[in-house]
């Protein structure tokens, strides 16, 4: 396969990372916490899609909607039960809780579905595109489109709407936001609902190209999405997109030209180098220490 085809493969992979990273970065940007359960919400979204399509026999579009609804509710419930009581706790406590929630979701999936992976039909029926000898699958065309739309939509939502502004206010100063009349708890709930809905969409597209879902399906992609978000500058929406695509391309090129086994090591190596040179990530803002 030629170099261009490898780049396209990287772009396909990177788009899914980007989509996952968008949800990660949004929740971090507003709620100022790393939701390590984000990858596992992706897994729940993928299972929901599969159950509704295969077991209930609904058309893909209904299954996708069901997946979005289930994940949004799950995200809000997780926030209410696990994170809200820790609103004033140290970031480390919240981080450990998030890891706990991640294992909890994996264990519940393991209990319900067992450890065998389930085959999932693709929810995307679009035909692939081929230009000359280059090939793009239907799923990756849809993923690219969806990721771009979500990135632009999310940016406009946060910059232009009243609710988006309220989110920015909450992210900067919860007390001052309350003095403006902003309901902080509700705003954080909505942030989690949106972040988890994005995880559901990422889950749908991920299993549609991968073909299987298991209890640990979300774990490694979740970490990769986190890396993508940090690489691009965590909290930055365009950063998540850039970080995800770069990560996918680096991974794909490493596999093609260096070594399949070393691909992950190279990906994480790049992250370390970027953070050494620019600790805030590629597009991240440097927060000034307030005097």
């Amino acid at each position: 396969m030629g170099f261009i085809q490898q780049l396209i493969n990287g772009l396909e992979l990177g788009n899914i990372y980007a989509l996952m990273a968008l949800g990660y970065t949004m929740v971090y940007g507003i709620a100022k916490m790393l939701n390590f359960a984000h990858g596992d919400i992706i897994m729940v979204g993928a299972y929901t899609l599969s159950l509704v399509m295969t077991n209930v026999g609904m058309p893909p579009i209904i299954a996708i909607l069901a997946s979005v609804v289930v994940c949004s509710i799950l995200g809000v419930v997780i926030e209410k039960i696990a994170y809200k009581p820790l609103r004033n706790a140290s970031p480390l406590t919240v981080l450990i809780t998030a890891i706990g929630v991640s294992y909890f979701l994996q264990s519940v999936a393991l209990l319900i579905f067992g450890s065998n992976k389930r085959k999932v039909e693709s929810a995307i029926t679009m035909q692939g595109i081929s230009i000359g000898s280059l090939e793009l699958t239907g799923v990756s065309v849809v993923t690219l489109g969806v990721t771009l739309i979500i990135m632009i939509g999310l940016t406009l939502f946060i910059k232009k709407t009243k609710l988006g502004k309220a989110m920015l206010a909450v992210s900067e100063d919860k007390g001052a936001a309350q003095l403006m009349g902003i309901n902080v708890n509700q705003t954080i709930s909505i942030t989690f609902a949106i972040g988890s809905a994005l995880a559901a969409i990422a889950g749908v597209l991920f299993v549609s190209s991968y073909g299987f879902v298991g209890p640990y399906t979300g774990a490694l992609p979740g970490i990769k999405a986190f890396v993508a978000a940090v690489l691009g500058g965590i909290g930055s929406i365009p950063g998540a997109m850039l970080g995800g695509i770069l990560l996918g391309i680096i991974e794909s090129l490493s596999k093609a030209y260096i070594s399949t086994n070393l691909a992950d090591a190279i990906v994480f190596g790049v992250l370390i180098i970027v953070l050494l040179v620019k600790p805030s990530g590629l597009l991240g803002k440097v927060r000034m220490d307030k005097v």
Partner: protein
Amino acid sequence: MAMLKVENLEVYYGMIKAIKGVSFEVNEGEVIALIGANGAGKTTILHTITGLIGAKAGNIEFQGKNLLKTPAHKIVSMGMAHVPEGRRIFQELTVLENLKLGAYTRSSKSEIDETLKMIYSKFPRLEERKEQIAGTLSGGEQQMLAMGRALMSHPKIILMDEPSMGLSPLYVNEIFKIIEEISSSGTTVLLVEQNAKKALSIADRAYVLETGNIVLEGKAKDIINDDSIKKAYLGE
């Protein structure tokens, strides 16, 4: 009837009793000064009134409604705005975005625009810098923005916490002039200040707070002539 009534308020930080049974009243149209040294509990009282911290005992009533049972985000739409200590403007947003957040609970766009015009006429510098990121403003400008943001909610009463803190004398005079203007336009003012002399010069009545207790209350012009106050707070 008092507009704002605080009765036997007790507030704790963990095991520490910070406010030990404070009572005071603010009547409509008044400027009330709450003065006292650092750590006397002035900021704690304001934070308790607007719901940022809870009380252990006592009662706070605003226009007959129990504020201790009202969630913080619902208080501003009842007509109470709070300019917090240290300004706490949204540093990463623009001046205009900050002002618009002040009107978060209002829905009529034409009324909001009208208030915005009024604020720009009071603080012309905010209009000049409306597209600027708020964190890049000077201290005095940030204080004006914090006051403008509070006024955007069109409050009946405005609580101000140390508006003169860290400002040059020139700005201090300007800020106090604006507080007098706010008062004369019909808004009730509850002012917390360490700069007792300045605060007393514009207040109708004042309460003196010492380690969580009110030790003196009365007309501002009487308090300004009180010998113990002169010694303790006015440096005379």
